[in-house]
């Protein structure tokens, strides 16, 4: 177990749900309540001063449904750690944009695509889709082709034709052959 993970576990033993190591990549899953404290600790005491990325995962059928993923590293890129936290569908996550300014836009993207809101975010607005768009397009139940929407004189979206593509994997298929990427005709 890496030094960093051990330190986090030591300090936040109540909040660490699990840790995982896979090919030298270290992941710590912590409870949502502690996310901000842990991030602050990582930056101030573990030298993990760079926030590389924030993303989110939609597990659809698993409860809690969403998961936030934060990638941290040292400035010289010698150490790397991934921090995850499960988020239920109606929950908000504490914004870390006051720890790293770069989190501002990452969190807005998560909100735009996945619909997870952040508490105390300075500007919780959509970043890619237009303001007023009613869906969260990267959620699992959202069709790839899109849905028709219209806000007169502001913006609109339509449904893209899907014949002959794109190629989609079937994650629920039983055999690897059936799971291969195929054109589905309609998503």
């Amino acid at each position, binding site marked *: 177990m890496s030094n960093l993970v051990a330190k986090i576990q030591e300090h936040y033993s109540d909040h660490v749900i699990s840790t995982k190591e896979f090919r030298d990549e270290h992941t710590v899953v912590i409870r949502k309540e502690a996310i901000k404290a842990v991030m602050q600790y990582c930056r101030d005491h573990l030298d993990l001063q760079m926030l590389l990325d924030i993303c989110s995962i939609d597990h659809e059928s698993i409860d809690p449904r969403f998961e936030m993923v934060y990638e941290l590293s040292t400035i010289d890129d010698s150490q790397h750690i991934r921090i995850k936290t499960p988020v239920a569908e109606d929950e908000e996550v504490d914004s870390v944009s006051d720890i790293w300014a770069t989190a501002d836009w990452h969190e807005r993207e998560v909100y735009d695509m996945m619909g997870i809101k952040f508490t105390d975010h300075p500007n919780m607005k959509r970043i*890619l889709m237009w303001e007023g768009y009613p869906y969260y397009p990267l959620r699992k139940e959202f069709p*790839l082709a899109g849905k028709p929407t219209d806000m007169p004189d*502001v913006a609109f979206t*339509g449904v*893209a034709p899907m014949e002959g593509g794109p190629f989609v994997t079937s994650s629920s298929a039983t055999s690897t052959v059936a799971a291969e990427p195929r054109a589905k005709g309609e998503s």
Partner: protein
Amino acid sequence: MVSSVPENSENTANSDFVYDSKVEGNIIFTQVDAAINWMRKNSLWPMPMGLACCAIELMATASARFDISRFGAEVMRFSPRQADVMIVSGTVTYKMALAVKRVWDQMPEPKWCIAMGACASSGGMYRSYATLQGIDRLIPVDVYISGCPPRPEALIEGLLRLQRKIDTESSTRELKAEPAEEVVKGLGI
């Protein structure tokens, strides 16, 4: 001009007012339509609507190596009010779509539109919730150029096709008529 005329030339000193038989003696008979079309097609002022990677090829077309000015279309203006052909080069997202339409509406008649590349023509590889599936769903397109991105030669070919199209228009009649209703594919996707 006056100062450059040598003393011993066949023009007199006051050459500004001399009848220049070399130029003015040749009278050309033509149709008004042909004359107007000839003037229009040889000085198309493009409105560059660069939205993605295709815009790089558009810039290349305008630069020295390919030099779109050989075809009279070098005056790229970022003001739609001074442009008469909109070159939509790139992916039109829904977020940008109405802005493109608005710029188009600001261009004075007569105006033409070139959809440059797969994205502008049909949405290209972006079969998704975020991309307009072809700019012809919003504004009428005269020339589609295939390619991802099209080479500058392809854009020049498109421009020449547009010039040929302009050549066939009945411009005089259209000068008097009300601007025709724009025909677009509409959003019945």
